[in-house]
């Protein structure tokens, strides 16, 4: 009986450390994994953005690649970022240092719209 109590007591004592370790370790680990595995590429193809909504962590660099035979221009709706005209296979990158939702479009084919959600 005593022995079991001791066991539980030591478990209870150790638990906060274990939890703290998980709490400390986990977010760091999760963040670096996300940054590695989450896609930060947008493919501009057939007059659409793929994916049209992309969610990325803060400080991610998103890269758009134009796979169309015609140029496109990546421009945020409120002027935060704007590329030069991207010819076929040209790329444009922008690093999102603040959380938020960034709506963008092709400024010469304005029916093409997309969103980057930074969190």
């Amino acid at each position, binding site marked *: 009986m005593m022995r079991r109590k001791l066991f539980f007591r030591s478990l209870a004592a150790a638990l906060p450390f274990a939890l703290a370790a998980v709490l400390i370790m986990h977010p760091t680990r999760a963040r670096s994994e996300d940054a590695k595995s989450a896609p930060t590429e947008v493919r501009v193809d057939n007059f659409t953005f793929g994916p049209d909504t992309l969610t990325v962590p803060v400080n991610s660099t998103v890269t758009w690649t134009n796979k169309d035979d*015609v*140029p496109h221009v990546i421009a945020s*709706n409120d002027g935060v970022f704007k590329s*030069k*005209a991207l010819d076929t296979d040209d790329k444009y990158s922008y690093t999102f240092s603040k959380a938020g939702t960034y709506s963008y479009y092709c400024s*010469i084919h*304005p*029916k093409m*719209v997309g969103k980057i959600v930074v969190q």
Partner: protein
Amino acid sequence: MSKKKLFDPNPSGFIEHDHNNDGIDRRGFLKCMAWAGTGALCVIQGGVLKSYALGSQMGSGMKSHKRGEFSFVQISDSHMGFNKPANPDVIATLKAAVDKINALPEQPEFLLHTGDISHLSKPEEFDNVDQILKATNKEILFVPGEHDVLNDEGAMFRERYAKNSKGQGWYSFDKNGVHFVGLVNVMNLKAGGLGTLGPEQLEWLEGDVKHLKHSTPIVVFAHIPLWTVYPQWGWGTDDSAQALSYLKKFGSVTVLNGHIHQTMQKVEGNVTFHTAFSTAFPQPAPGAAEGPGPMKVPAEQLRSVLGITDVNYVQRRHALALVDSSLG
């Protein structure tokens, strides 16, 4: 002799009727219309704009222009610099269009180019087009397409082609009693929207036409269609209805556009809308593909889907007769 019939210029069936019932003798017209060309020839015969396919009058016994008549040719979307499979040689096809124009027995007084002169707004692309079109020995009036204003808000375009224009490049002029208006609807486009004229240009247009007689024939030319062809692909202009409201009082209004790389025509009351072939590459019919990008056709068919446009006015008529002609 081949090809498309007057008022049936449009394989996708947008125009089926002459809503004007103006009694133009289209049969006789058609005789003159056999088309072998790549553009449109517009003949102003005192009032009504008719369109002939380029090459159509050759050897067909058409009379020379009467006094007070004249013709012009519309070409569009030369996309100089484009080199993808849909047309690896846009220089050759633009030259073919020039050959068509130069072979016309009744030489047009000038050319209208309805934009996308270049593919990427590069100086050497504009230089190439200028060099090729010089062989027509004609005055050429331009409006920009979105490909001509890519990185500088149209500064280079205006410097080269529209020095005396207003605002972002719009202007008007008169020829033989016809009032021509060149509009810009490819700048300051809003996310999710279509082409845009903008309040400043609309105000200018209202003032520009206000004092003209109602009988003055009006020709409006701009890159993106001023009627809603297919909004899903951006083929229309958000505030075109406002512009057209200023033109309601006129008996004859002809709207010439490019951008969609295929011919289409629509008649709405006194207004005839028309889009021209490209000289570079075709695009799919509305909704016929997943997107509006360049359409690859077998090489031997390419010239059959490129062309120029031909228009002709006859005094006191109110319908525009248009025939579009392919390069081959």
